[in-house]
């Protein structure tokens, strides 16, 4: 930073003036011209160097920006196909539509019990596939799960058929051939009385276990489970409800069951606890509002509800304040409303998005975490069924008149908005909106949490504790070294401190994490005691020193007093080590960690901010020290001489004259140190637990932006959301140091102008 301001000014004027002054007198014209050329050349090289540095920095910024920018681009969608489905007869609650993962086929379940297929490439109808079991039993209701095309089919004689549409891909020299087939898994009787199944809903988990719920026309409600090679179980669910049931949903593993009625009520069973009566009943709004579309968001922990007035809401369970183990469902988010009643909802099989169709033909793609509306399209008429293709690249809507539209969708980063990056977000299963960073989960139904706030706070926290340790030591050391120290010792000390800067930060981090952290944990009070005792001892020593007659004192050359302090430091360390356990026994019942936890409800982590303060301080001290020392040494000698001549003591001169004059330099040293601490990676990576917590407490750790990039970039799929968010974090880091350095430079200029007048 200093260099930036000094380079353009320093080299040119002396050379020019020197050359021209001498040129006219003694140097031949030829030589003068040569000097001029060299001068220009040097100037050019320097200018070129400066410009290329600026260009390089700008180019890096542009590159990083380009990687992060797509996060904020809107989703794209365009109409691909528009055609009629042959022989389509929409029956609410029966018609389902699906698309295979390669988007070769779309299929519609026909009320006669057959799958009508269309090859999407060129919209060629293929041979329908009959469902054998439905030749004997008549279809009365159906549900298709968004993942893996599982079908749950209810019949008029009280049976539920579990089936799956499987698409097998085979490969040959010419490419991929996809063949659809239907697998009937199990036919189960759910109504002994043979009452028609009016509503059915089901789920297969990742191990292939099925859970389903069925509601019959006689009002009996049943849940069942089935596993390949295992027994099928069907059990009655008890309870009474107000109004006519309209929608049914059961979560994976058959844990929670929901039933919506046209009286605007939602009934919630926790089946593992009580199958006989609803666990909770929710009122969904004022009279007249009722659910017209309902399904789970992937993961089965949150419900999406569409209403007859076009409202779309997300509900999920939140811990009950009165009883810690109960989770009551409540409205969490309201999405942009549809212009007319919602008719159907289809969750994405990959992420927390879902599609809603409306009575007026509107089709909307929403995303829960960010609350964004990603796609707005219009179908050819009231939407009967929807399908969001397994790879989330196309969207298909069939209207009640059989007219179908297919849109291609490009929507790579639905979970990102300024709100999810910097605001509090209410994530599924959380008790309140929070700032959370948790980018990766083990499965597809994981809700990524990309709040940068804990990381920014962690970065500032690490830098703060580092500077808290480094600034007093570095600045005072620089003052002493430049003003009071014997010049021979100074010649040793300054390079020695600068060598500290050459120590790789990974070594510092390693030592801090594996050696210092456990040591500090055991002896934290000893360290505190040392820090307290040392200044006291020095003060006592100084007073004692003044009692010694001048003649004796004069034997020690000025600036060599330092040697006397070294034994004092040793003494203070020893005393602190002795005093620490004693203090802990007396004030903290022998266990500081426990005391911290009891008093503040806060964990005393082994890898905490104090360790980071020491380690980061160690890395930053050389920078602040060197720049400050230079600034202090460069205070013009005539200032010092003047001050001393006027009778000021050395101490007065140092604090009143030298320190203020050098303050711009010291300030910029501190700021450069801050910039270094903000960008420091290895120390925080190795010496903290990398816990992305939002806390300024010195007793726990942190995760910084830079460490976060280092930790997560190996796992981030190139071009994915995490990858781009990490680049965004890099931009933030860049901006932080850029702003700090710019502000520092401006303040430095101001201070310099102010003290130039002195």
């Amino acid at each position: 930073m200093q260099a930036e301001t000094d380079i353009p000014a320093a080299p040119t004027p002396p050379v020019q003036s020197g050359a021209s002054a001498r040129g006219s007198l003694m140097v031949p014209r030829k030589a003068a011209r040569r000097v001029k050329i060299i001068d220009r050349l040097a100037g050019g090289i320097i200018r070129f160097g400066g410009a290329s540095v600026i260009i390089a920095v700008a180019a890096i910024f542009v590159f990083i920006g380009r990687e992060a920018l797509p996060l904020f681009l809107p989703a794209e969608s365009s109409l691909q196909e528009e055609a009629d489905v042959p022989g389509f007869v929409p029956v609410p609650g029966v018609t389902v539509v699906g698309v295979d993962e390669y988007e070769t086929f779309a299929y519609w379940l026909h009320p006669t019990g057959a799958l009508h297929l269309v090859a999407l490439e060129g919209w060629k109808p293929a041979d329908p596939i009959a469902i054998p079991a439905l030749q004997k039993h008549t279809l009365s209701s159906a549900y298709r799960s968004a993942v893996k095309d599982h079908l749950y089919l209810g019949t008029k004689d009280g049976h539920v058929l579990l089936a799956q549409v499987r698409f097998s891909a085979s490969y040959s020299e010419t490419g991929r051939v996809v063949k659809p087939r239907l697998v009937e898994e199990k036919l189960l009787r759910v109504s002994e009385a043979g009452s028609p199944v009016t509503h059915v809903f089901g789920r297969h988990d990742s191990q292939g276990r099925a859970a389903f719920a069925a509601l019959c026309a006689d009002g009996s409600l049943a849940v069942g489970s089935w596993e390949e090679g295992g027994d099928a179980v069907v059990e009655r669910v008890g309870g009474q409800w107000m109004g006519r049931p309209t929608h049914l949903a059961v979560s994976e593993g058959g844990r929670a069951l929901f039933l919506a009625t046209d009286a605007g009520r939602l009934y919630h069973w926790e089946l593992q606890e009580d199958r006989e009566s609803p666990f909770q009943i929710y009122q969904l709004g004022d009279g007249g509002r009722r659910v017209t579309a309902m399904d789970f968001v992937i993961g089965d922990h949150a419900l999406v509800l569409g209403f007859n007035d076009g409202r779309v809401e997300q509900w999920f369970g939140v811990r009950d304040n009165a009883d810690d183990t109960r989770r009551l469902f409540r409205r969490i988010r309201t999405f942009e409303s549809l212009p007319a009643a919602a008719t159907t909802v289809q969750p994405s099989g990959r992420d927390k998005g879902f599609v809603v169709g409306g009575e007026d033909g509107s089709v909307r793609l929403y995303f829960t975490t960010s609350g964004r509306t990603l796609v707005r399209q219009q179908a050819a008429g009231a939407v009967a069924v929807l399908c969001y293709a397994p790879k989330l690249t196309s969207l298909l809507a069939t209207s009640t008149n059989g007219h179908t539209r297919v849109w291609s969708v490009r929507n790579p980063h639905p979970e990102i908005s300024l709100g999810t990056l910097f605001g509090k977000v209410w994530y599924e299963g959380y008790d309140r909106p929070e700032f959370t960073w948790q980018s990766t989960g083990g499965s597809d139904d994981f809700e990524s949490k990309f709040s940068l706030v804990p990381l920014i706070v962690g970065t500032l926290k690490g830098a703060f504790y580092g500077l808290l340790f480094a600034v007093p030591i570095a600045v005072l050391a620089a003052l002493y070294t430049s003003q009071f120290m014997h010049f021979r010792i100074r010649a040793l000390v300054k390079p020695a401190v600068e060598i500290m800067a050459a120590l790789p930060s990974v070594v510092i981090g390693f030592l801090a994490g594996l050696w210092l952290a456990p040591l500090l944990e055991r002896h934290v009070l000893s360290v505190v005691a040392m820090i307290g005792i040392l200044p006291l001892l020095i003060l006592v020593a100084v007073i004692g020193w003044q009692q010694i007659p001048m003649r004796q004192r004069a034997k020690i050359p000025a600036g060599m007093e330092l040697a006397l302090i070294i034994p004092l430091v040793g003494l203070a360390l020893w005393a602190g080590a002795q005093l620490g356990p004693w203090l802990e026994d007396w004030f903290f019942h022998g266990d500081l960690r426990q005391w911290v936890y009891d008093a503040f409800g806060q964990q005393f982590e082994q890898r905490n901010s104090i360790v980071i303060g020491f380690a980061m301080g160690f890395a930053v001290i050389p920078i602040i020290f060197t720049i400050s020392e230079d600034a202090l040494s460069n205070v013009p000698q005539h200032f010092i001489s003047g001050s001393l001549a006027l009778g000021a003591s050395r101490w007065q001169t140092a604090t009143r004259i030298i320190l203020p004059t050098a303050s711009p330099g010291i300030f910029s040293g501190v700021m450069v140190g801050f910039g270094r601490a903000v960008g420091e990676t290895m120390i925080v990576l190795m010496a903290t637990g990398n816990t992305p917590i939002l806390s300024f407490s010195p007793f726990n750790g942190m995760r910084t932006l830079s460490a976060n990039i280092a930790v997560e970039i190996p796992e981030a799929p190139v071009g994915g959301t995490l990858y781009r968010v990490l680049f965004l974090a890099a931009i933030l880091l860049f901006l932080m140091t850029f702003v700090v350095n710019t502000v520092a430079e401006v303040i430095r200029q101001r201070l310099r102008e102010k003290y130039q007048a002195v």
Partner: protein
Amino acid sequence: MNRTTILTQSRRAALALAGSLFLAAGGRAEDTITLDPDLKDYQPVSGVSGNLTSIGSDTLNNLMTYWAEGFAKIYPNVKIQIEGKGSSTAPPALIAGTAQLGPMSRRMKAEEVDAFEQKYGYKPKLIAVALDTLAVYVHKDNPIQSLTLQQVDAMFSSTKRRGGKDISKWGDLGLTGEWKNKPISLYGRNSASGTYGFFKEGPLDKGDFKSSVKEQPGSASVVQGIEKDLGGVGYSGIGYKTSGVKALPISFRGRPVMPSQKSANDFSYPITRYLYIYINKDPVKGTDPLVKEFIKFVLSKQGQEITIKDGYYPISAKKEAEMMAELE
């Protein structure tokens, strides 16, 4: 982090080094592990040579090194390079073709499979190569006897999907005396690891970790952290057990079960998983012969003996046959 290159000439040295590292890690749990007698012997074939690169799981890193070592003994002209930074590093490496073997301690996510499919037109092949149990470790002086899965969830998770009350000090688990108010200090793996994802999916029931879980870069450093932290608890593979920690029996709808070969084989220990190697098998041209031989070796009796040596449980002969069918 662990980049180990095994060249035939430095084989001995590498084995000695790896062996000593392993001894230092303290060997494995009490029970003796037996091989399924129906596992087939490996039949060497002629003309196998070339280079193999493996990039992926940290959990599988040692095991891959041993397998590579055993394989190189049979085929001196094969050079194998192994890199283990975390399961999430395997898919990009397989896609870019920089690795032929992608060891992973979890299955690929749909996005990862998609990316592979986009490049090659077919899905990557999944081969189960060993059984692993994740143990929940505490400091050796911790008096706690066992945990339920719900308690594990309530300790580690902020979402508590299994419905327990929050557990933040050891007294919440019924410990008394000086342990009553001792805070629980949580250790876990970093999010690039399959172990992280598996623990999240299993014990946490797809919930979220508390943000106070200290994320360690390797399985061994989780155990090291707990060794030095009296109130510590963490999860790591059973192969990483040392004398400074103890593994707790875990119960899930029944009696507490210790991780063992038997409880892993019948999945009665609730945190059991397969470890995998993903390979690129062209459905038309078939598997690259070198990769195929390596996988055959890994699945054979000889390969599974090595699995035991490294502290994991061998697969059954039935699973071997299933995986061999995948390979053909």
